[in-house]
């Protein structure tokens, strides 16, 4: 599950103004009449962190499991993307050829 900070796409140490600005931006992106569910998610996230008191409350009493999918996404985001090797691509083609031939034989048989 995403944290309210992640839903609003803001840093954990953002202040009230930054959070409100991000919230209004998201509301423009997801108006309630067109995206009721997304809007509700954004609204709930905003309500839970909108003031310093709310943020501290969230920090103190949140007991949700750390989200490993988010962590995985973080690791991937920090990785340096590259290109596959020639061998990998040729192997991929070889795999595709074999799958195609099998399909051809089965269809003809």
């Amino acid at each position, binding site marked *: 599950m995403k944290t309210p900070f992640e839903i609003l796409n803001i840093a954990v140490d953002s202040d009230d103004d930054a959070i409100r600005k991000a919230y209004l931006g998201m509301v423009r992106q997801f108006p309630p009449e067109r995206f009721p569910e997304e809007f509700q998610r954004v609204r709930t996230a905003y309500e839970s962190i909108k003031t310093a008191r709310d943020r501290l409350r969230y920090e*103190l009493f949140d007991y949700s499991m750390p989200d490993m999918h988010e962590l995985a996404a973080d690791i991937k985001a920090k990785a340096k993307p590259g290109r596959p090797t020639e061998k990998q691509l040729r192997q*991929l083609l070889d795999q595709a050829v074999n799958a195609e031939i099998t399909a051809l034989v089965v269809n003809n048989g």
Partner: protein
Amino acid sequence: MAKKRKKKARSRKGRKHVPASQLPALGEKQLREGKFSEAVKTFRQLTEANDDKRWRSFHRQAYQGRIGQLLAKGMAKEALAIYRNMVDYCQTENPSLYFSLLLKGGYAEKAVALFVDLEESLAKTAGQMVAELFAAYLLSGHEQVLRFLPDGHLLKSQFPSADMALQAYCDGNNGNVEDHLRKITFRSPYRNFRLALKGMLAFEEDRTAAEDCFAKIPATSIFRKMVIPYRSIIDYPPGKSAKLTSREQQVVQSLQGISKSTARFIEGITARQNNAVQLFTFLVGRQKFLSGHKLRDICYRLLIHAENKYVNFVRIFGELDYFQYNRMLALGGEVDGDYWEACQDWQEAFAGIPAGDDPQDNLRKALILRHCVELLEREDGAFDYEQRAEMLEKSLEYDSGDLSCWLKLLDLAAHDGRQRYYKLVNRMLAEFPNNVEVLLRGVMAAVDRGAYKKAGKLADKVLQIDPINSKAKQLLIDAHLEHGRKLARQGKFVLAVKECQAAAQDNNGNYVPGVLEICHGLILVLAGDKDAGLTLHEQGVGMADNLVSGCFQACMEARLLQYSGKLLKPFDRRLKDACKGKPEVRGLLDFAALLQRYGAKEKQAVQNLRPIVTSWLASGLKLDLDKGAYLQLCAILQQQNYFELLTKYGKKADKLWPDSPLFVFYYLCGKSRAGSKKISNRELDRLEDMLELAELQHDRKSVMLIEELLKKLLFSGKISPNGAMGNALSGFLEMFENNETMRDEMLQIMESEDFLDADFDDEKW
């Protein structure tokens, strides 16, 4: 030798002589049962004996079935041999099947030769598909096949461009990739490869453009399979992945720049997302993947769900400080639903926060105290008002700006005597002078204690801030009316009339119909203007929701204005006459609302009128009321101590909705006159059953009310000292395990003579 002989013997044994007349039926049966090898032999016998078209067709079917069986087992070469037999015996050819079998059997050269021979005779689409298959075959590292292709064939002539483009892409030489791709023509079997490579180049800069390129590759093209890893990254959000083959996964890892071990780590953590213990063990065994700070933070959060890993945590990261340790325990308690324990742990955590004036620490303390109150509410229901109020008061010392906390405290103070309530309202008004919610509470409190001028000022202030606030208008009228009544009681009729006029001026039609006119009229009667007063009063009775309501309002207003007994009689007589009629559903509910309204001001007067309205209210039992109406009526009858009616309504509702604990409560609350009269053991058992049911249904209101009634029955000595009492007492002792005051009271009862004389079995003692 022995083995050979044995095999031969078994073969002979298996061969049976079948008369020629039975062969067709046998062959068809073998075909149906998928025994193609036997079917081939049977139909061969039949075609050799009689070269019928029908037998030849069955023979061919048997061969094709057998080829399919062999291919399914991966025996392509054997399937090829069977195909050749089929051609010999059935004089039938299937070039497409032959071509496929050659490729599958590893005879690519022969397949190429066959393709070149048949290329022109193949249908256009089929030809293109096979050509593309060869293109991919050549690019996958089988360029030796090129020599079997004639010079000038597109597969051969365009191969170098495609191959070099692939190499240039992998080397990161984008310029060369584009140069080579430009040489691939539109009719080339490599044209979809060109699209794929273009998309792969765009993937790094503009994923939408890449997606567009990939979308142009036909669904039947083999090169679409080459871009599966790229598309999986585009189509799936971070953290999720498509089902990919290991080779495709390798390409994804290269594209994302993730090593094999990191990929395994990611796979491991996402697979253990829902198991804190396993995840903790997995993470601490692979510390190199996360920074020390990050790992510690995650492991601490996991400890909340996996407390038994604390020793491992300490070994790796060191001891937690007092606050963090107790916070971890408290949150663990909350996860397990053990709110009382959690509350204790939070209080320990509170003690771990340094004393001083640090605003952040003070806010933290305030939040913990408020959180403890929430936990107590979950654990204890409505009990321990005092403890909760104390915690909230203390929390406000650390952080006074939380309005919701003030309001909660105010609600708790309402249980605790009016003076404390008024003081609290005044403190709130000082803290939030312009808050509408607070101002409205201030108006209510001021009306309640007779400070009408203050109520009026506060209501005016609300209307300045929010001119259409209907609640403020209602409260303002209430204030005028109450003031008017007070002045009239003091004999200041001129001023009282002015207040009534002011109330009428503020009324925009939403106030209780008729009440302003009735009150005004009755004041005029007191002031000596009898005719005008009675006319206005009559007008008010007519404006009321129904005649009973109008007459009831008149009786109540007369009592509030302290009319003498003699003067009250005509109003009471009229109400009595009005009550001879039958109520309607709406009228009954409107009247109930009036009972509630006047009951809050003058409970005794409402009680005095009970004998007059009882029969009318009782006839409401014959109406077809829904559950909501019963709930509303029962709640009001309970508030006004109309126990006789409450018993009747509760009993009927209990019959209609037997699984509703609340109706059993209302019935027995009425019957026991709110715990002051004895009820039977059977009824007590039923009440206890309903308490359990309400707990199961998480019906907090019913739990609270039933517990309160049981407590009253117990403390007033109305529960017989028998087994049921024992059950109730043991239940209460358990309930008040953590509340010393209540427990002491319980123990006092248990030490009383009555109790000690009771006949309990050993287990109960």
